[in-house]
């Protein structure tokens, strides 16, 4: 089904279309929420709220951008608001989570490096961290990030550059890893 038809059907109150829209986008929304929140329960909460708001506000979607971009705008707003409110990301013990060995199996990065990297990314100012996660980890373009965060593309690029510079500084001990 064409996306525009799907949107029109959802606007008309078609429950099946709502579910189809949800199925088409839930994976990406949940994944982004999880990357930013670092917690399954929070990611589920944020995904839930994103779709509730999306269904409530779908009448205001003008189609200037892709529906996915519009949904990611809502996702980032919901996640960043939510994270500030619960302040979990300030108190979360990143190294404990790492010690749990979540997911198991072989990882590309060494444990010590992973912990340091996690801490370094967590310590980034929120704007930098969001752009870094969206661009370098989740593969969003600067244009998509600009729309989602309501900033200029140039701002997104500048924030990514500063995020990388800060990470490079924080991870200077591991310079051997990338120089070789």
């Amino acid at each position, binding site marked *: 089904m064409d996306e525009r038809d799907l949107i029109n059907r959802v606007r008309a109150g078609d429950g099946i279309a709502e*579910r189809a829209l949800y199925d088409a986008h839930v994976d990406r929304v949940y*994944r982004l929420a999880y990357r930013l929140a670092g917690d399954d329960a929070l990611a589920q909460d944020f995904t*839930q709220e994103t779709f509730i708001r999306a269904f409530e506000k779908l009448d205001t979607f003008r189609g200037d951008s892709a529906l996915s971009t519009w949904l990611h705008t809502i996702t980032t707003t919901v996640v960043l*608001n939510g994270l500030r409110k619960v302040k979990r990301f300030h108190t979360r013990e990143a190294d404990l989570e790492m010690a749990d060995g*979540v997911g198991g199996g072989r*990882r590309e990065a060494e444990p010590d490096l992973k912990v340091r990297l996690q801490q370094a*990314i967590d310590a980034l100012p*929120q704007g930098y961290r969001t752009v870094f996660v969206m661009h*370098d980890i989740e593969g969003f373009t600067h244009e998509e990030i600009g729309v989602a965060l309501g900033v200029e593309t140039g701002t997104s690029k500048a924030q990514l550059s500063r995020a990388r510079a800060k990470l490079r500084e924080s991870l200077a001990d591991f310079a051997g890893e990338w120089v070789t």
Partner: protein
Amino acid sequence: MMTGNDDTKFETWLQDAAKTYNEPPTGTVPREQIWARIETERARRRARPVIVLRPWLRWGLAAAAVLVLGIGIGRWTAHEQTGGAGAAIARADSAASSDLVYQIAATQYLSRTETFLAGFRADLRAGRTEARFPGQARDLLTTTRLLLDSPAADDPRMRALLEDLELVLVQISQLGTERDTRNTDLITQDMDQRNVLPKLRSAIPAGPVPVRTQGAT
């Protein structure tokens, strides 16, 4: 000395290493679970008119007070003008007055918030963080949430602005009495990133604020 080659190597390495950052659990997304929660929550929100009435009650009282005032002023200033069309005009005026209440409240609130945030920011730049800010932010936060629940937030742009302001005010209200550079930096960064002050200023209509606000000094 860093070279462009070093930068590229670092970026490639970083992107690879960062894949493990907050990595979602392997396996499928709990779609059914989340969908069930969405349906439950939407049903709950649809079925809670009584709860929603609580903030509305306050706004209703405020609207009634302003309407009484408006009618009084109207009668006082226009009692000499009579005619058959008067009743119809009065009905139209009554509906318009209801909207006007929210517009007045929103304008007053935006003006107060703009003054507050500009002062907050100026103090930060001057290296001061006054203890009064968290308390004032909490007061404004209460009004923000009332407005978010009012027809003033029906306008998507106003709602987005109110949500941005809610975020900033929440953060300021949580500042401690000690100077907290990290958190104040984050707050100002957020304000810049979301263009809060320019959006706020452009949302305030030109001209004087019509009525004095609650708690305004």
